[in-house]
């Protein structure tokens, strides 16, 4: 009795332990998946407002600025007062009336770095420098703003109000462009040329360049004031944009035309291109970070991004093209504020809607509203907040969480038109040399690379592995069976060793003897035929001693001789077939570029990694084919080869199929070999002589560059998730197919 009880208990305990173990495995895999998913998920989330604050100001505002921490706002009132307001409690920290303004009114403002360039209604320009200095007092950070004014400059001789103004500075030069209320466009450039002895020489150019707009092409006499009738025909200038190279000036006009001037030679600026950017008036212009892409907002609320794209058809070789279109506002666009971090920007429309956009991903991430028409908007320096003042004199502050504005499914998997590219393309380029570099994270080239590498590896490994298994299980003599464990040991070889060999030994070798490899199959065929011919003349006594397997041993010297002959003839063959230089020949005749580390090398190396797997599993399956079936086939007059192909292979097919699938899974996830044996160039080209970059290797390459929580970091997790899902799917499909096949043969 006691023993039965105890046995029952052990049974129960074992049952539960096993159940628990199984469940634990499933839970761990699920947890892994959930963890990866949670890392990926934020990529596709929209931006959101974390916190919103409003402050009522006393008067109407024309310009706004904030510090890095969004603690202090600097506000410029129309009547000429600079005020610093604490964004925590709305208290005024400092007031600074602009002394240089006198009785004039502010009509336009341009902000650059820490400067305010202020245009007045009597044609003057004020430059105001702002700075926030930090100090610590007993561990508390105190930010004290400073204001300093430069001497006002008389910009317009005719003393007309300056409707819009733009100013850019470089180390040695400063360019000011302003449009006056009566439709003139004025340029003032100061250039400092340092001579060899360090003595600066100042040169100033003052020009009225209105003629560039009204007259087509080069303006011959810009300094002469244009005739009145010409002025009347000139479309009104509505907005200006100048890049920091002080070279490209864009002017938006009320008839929807966009003018592009080259002002690199300040004395002779000329019109490069004029395009119709909109059917209604252009109301706002703004450069994105990097000053290459131009955002154009129009009267109807349309927002487009334009860029100069290489175009051979044009004389200049470049043409302005619309590369992105963003979601429209319902009313005229009145302001554009770029981010200092990425290609994101804010747009404000006269109906009080403010959109947070990202140019490259073409998405509008967030829409926020003010109660009245916005007067001015600004993006915080860290792109984590937006400020606006509306015509009711309310100051708004939004804290924004917008971690991954550049990512959408389209940027991850589709073609994207990046700045500097001629057309939309699949690009992976995570880091670049400059600060304003835009990471390009398309997974498509990596998926392509993975497929390419896997395919070439499978192309090599499946026939070799399966046929080797067939040979070993069906034809090899018993005394030669120790070959099997030797091949199995190959599977234990760390892939880093294989990658090392492939990259540092095989790749240069193949490059050196490439023509030999091309002619090798021919010679091998020739020598094998010769060997078969000789075999028939060998005395049966010798053959009998080795039985099955002797053929293989007999072949080995012939294969070695074939290889030797091909290598010896390599140079001659290159001369004969490839006109002396196979690389050039490939390039000229077939249009294929030859990389030293290419898909052939990787195919070989991954192939070597997975051949033992495919071999071992298929060999086991083939060995398990009942001997009675083989006897039946042989007794029916089938040759051993026919038996192998018609009985052994089909009967072992579930096992062979699993073997191939497991090999496939391994090849997809293979990292070190791909990493070491290809150039890791994320290009999309089936060319077998090119390298590629695979998903798994990419993760290894990029991890050191990926700060935690960043877009690259999460994109790498997405790559991991893709690999995870692929492996999961492949294994599931493989197992179901295998079970199905097994059911067919289960009655054996």
């Amino acid at each position, binding site marked *: 009795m006691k023993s039965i009880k105890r046995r029952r208990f052990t049974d129960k305990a074992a049952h539960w332990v096993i159940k628990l173990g199984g469940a634990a495995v499933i839970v761990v895999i699920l947890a892994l998946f959930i963890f990866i998913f949670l890392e990926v998920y934020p990529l596709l989330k929209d931006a959101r407002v974390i916190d919103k604050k409003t402050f009522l100001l006393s008067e109407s505002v024309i310009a706004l600025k904030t510090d890095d921490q969004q603690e202090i706002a600097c506000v410029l009132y129309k009547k000429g007062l600079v005020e610093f307001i604490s964004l925590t409690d709305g208290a005024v920290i400092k007031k600074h009336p602009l002394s240089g303004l006198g009785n004039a009114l502010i009509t336009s403002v341009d902000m650059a770095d820490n400067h305010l360039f202020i245009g007045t209604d009597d044609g003057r320009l004020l430059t105001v420098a702002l700075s926030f200095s930090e100090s610590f007092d007993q561990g508390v950070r105190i930010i004290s703003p400073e204001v300093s004014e430069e001497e006002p400059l008389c910009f317009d001789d005719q003393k007309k109000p300056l409707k819009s103004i733009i100013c850019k500075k470089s180390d040695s030069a400063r360019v000011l462009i302003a449009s006056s209320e009566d439709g003139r466009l004025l340029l003032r450039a100061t250039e400092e040329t340092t001579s060899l002895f360090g003595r600066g020489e100042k040169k100033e150019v003052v020009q009225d360049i209105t003629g560039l707009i009204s007259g087509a092409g080069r303006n011959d006499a810009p300094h002469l004031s244009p005739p009145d009738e010409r002025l009347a025909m000139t479309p009104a200038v509505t907005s200006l944009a100048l890049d920091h190279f002080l070279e490209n000036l864009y002017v938006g006009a009320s008839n929807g035309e966009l003018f592009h001037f080259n002002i690199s030679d300040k004395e002779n600026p000329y019109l490069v291109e004029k395009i119709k950017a909109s059917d209604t008036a252009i109301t706002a212009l703004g450069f994105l970070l990097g000053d290459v892409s131009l955002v154009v907002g129009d009267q109807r609320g349309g927002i487009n991004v334009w860029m100069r794209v290489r175009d051979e058809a044009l004389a200049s070789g470049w043409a302005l093209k619309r590369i992105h279109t963003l979601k429209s506002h319902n009313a005229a666009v009145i302001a554009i504020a770029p981010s200092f971090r990425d290609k994101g920007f804010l747009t404000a429309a006269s109906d009080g809607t403010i959109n947070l956009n990202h140019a490259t991903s073409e998405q509008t991430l967030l829409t926020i509203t003010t109660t009245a028409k916005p007067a001015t908007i600004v993006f915080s320096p860290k792109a984590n907040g937006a400020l606006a003042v509306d015509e009711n004199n309310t100051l708004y502050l939004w804290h924004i969480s917008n971690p991954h504005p550049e990512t959408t499914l389209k940027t991850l998997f589709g073609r994207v038109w990046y700045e500097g590219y001629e057309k939309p393309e699949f690009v992976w380029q995570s880091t670049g040399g400059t600060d304003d570099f835009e990471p390009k994270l398309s997974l498509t080239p990596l998926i392509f690379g993975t497929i390419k590498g896997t395919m070439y590896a499978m192309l090599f490994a499946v026939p070799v592995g399966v046929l080797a298994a067939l040979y070993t299980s069906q034809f090899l003599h*018993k005394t030669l069976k120790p070959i099997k464990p030797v091949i199995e040991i190959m599977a234990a070889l760390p892939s880093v060793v294989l990658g090392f060999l492939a990259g540092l030994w095989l790749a240069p070798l193949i490059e050196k003897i490439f023509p030999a490899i091309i002619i090798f199959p021919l010679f091998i065929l020739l020598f094998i035929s010769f060997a078969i011919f000789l075999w028939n003349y060998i005395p*049966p006594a010798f053959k009998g001693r080795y039985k099955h397997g002797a053929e293989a041993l007999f072949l080995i010297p012939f294969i070695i001789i074939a290889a030797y002959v091909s290598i010896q003839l390599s140079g001659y063959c290159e001369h004969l077939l490839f006109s002396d230089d196979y690389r050039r020949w490939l390039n000229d005749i077939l249009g294929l570029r030859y990389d030293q580390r290419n898909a052939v090398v990787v195919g070989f190396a991954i192939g070597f990694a997975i051949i033992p797997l495919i071999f071992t599993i298929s060999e086991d399956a083939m060995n398990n084919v*009942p*001997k*009675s*079936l*083989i*006897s*039946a*086939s*042989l*007794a*029916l*007059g*089938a*040759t051993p080869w*026919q038996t192998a192909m*018609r*009985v052994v292979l*089909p*009967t072992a097919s579930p096992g062979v199929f699993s073997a191939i699938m497991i090999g496939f899974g391994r090849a997809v996830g293979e990292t070190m070999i791909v990493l070491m044996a290809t150039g890791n160039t994320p290009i999309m080209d089936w060319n077998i002589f090119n390298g590629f970059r695979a998903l798994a290797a990419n993760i290894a390459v990029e991890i050191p560059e990926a700060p935690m929580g960043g877009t690259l970091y999460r994109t790498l997790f997405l790559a991991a998730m893709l690999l995870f899902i692929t492996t999961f799917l492949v294994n599931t499909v493989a197992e179901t197919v295998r079970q199905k096949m097994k059911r*067919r*043969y289960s*009655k*054996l």
Partner: protein
Amino acid sequence: MEILIPDQIVNVINLSLYYGKTKALKEITLDVSKSKITSFIGPSGCGKSTLIRCINRMNDLIEDVKIEGEIKIDGCDIYAPDVDVTELRKRVGMVFQKPNPFPKSIFENVIYGPRVLGVKNKSVLKDLCEKALKRAALWDDVKERLHVNALDLSGGQQQRLCIARAIAMEPEIVLLDEPCSALDPIATSKIEDMLVELKKHYTVIIVTHNMQQAARISDYTGFFMLGKLMEFNVTTEIFTNPREKATEDYITGRFG
């Protein structure tokens, strides 16, 4: 004790067979008559299967087998070095002790031999299949479901399928190693009828443990013991008037 066999097709001459060092067959000499049924009987382990396997060289598959003596078919030594084994096996079909259909459809099983020979014509293959299945008395059972997996058949049906598969190749000689050991009496009698029918076209050699069966259907009978051929004679002679004491003991059921 030598008897005269008319119309000889197979001659086994002084045949000895060693599995490694054990001698499984000891100096066997017998002749098989054409278009007759010859049966081999004897206690378990006496070497009947070994001998029958020698006739189509299936022993080649077993390692460490050494053969002395000769087997001639139509006067040619089948162990001569220039003999093509697959050709031989096409002429000498075999049905094994345990049914061993391929995990393929019934149709594919039956036409395996012709297929291997290179017959591709569908209608020819269909005719061959039907003819073979009819001869093996299986046609009525399976004509509706030629494309189901052969492994779905019962054991008896599988054995008849194996016979159909062997005779679809139209061999000259059919070797059967205890074809009825797994069958019920009805199936057994069906196969016996079939064998008698087959005799018109083929030479049949059958190993059996069933004395009645040997007595009923065979024309000649050989009795083996411990690797030796004890007695070989016309069936009626063996069963009514055995010359050897051992034979008599065995067939009367005193041992074995």
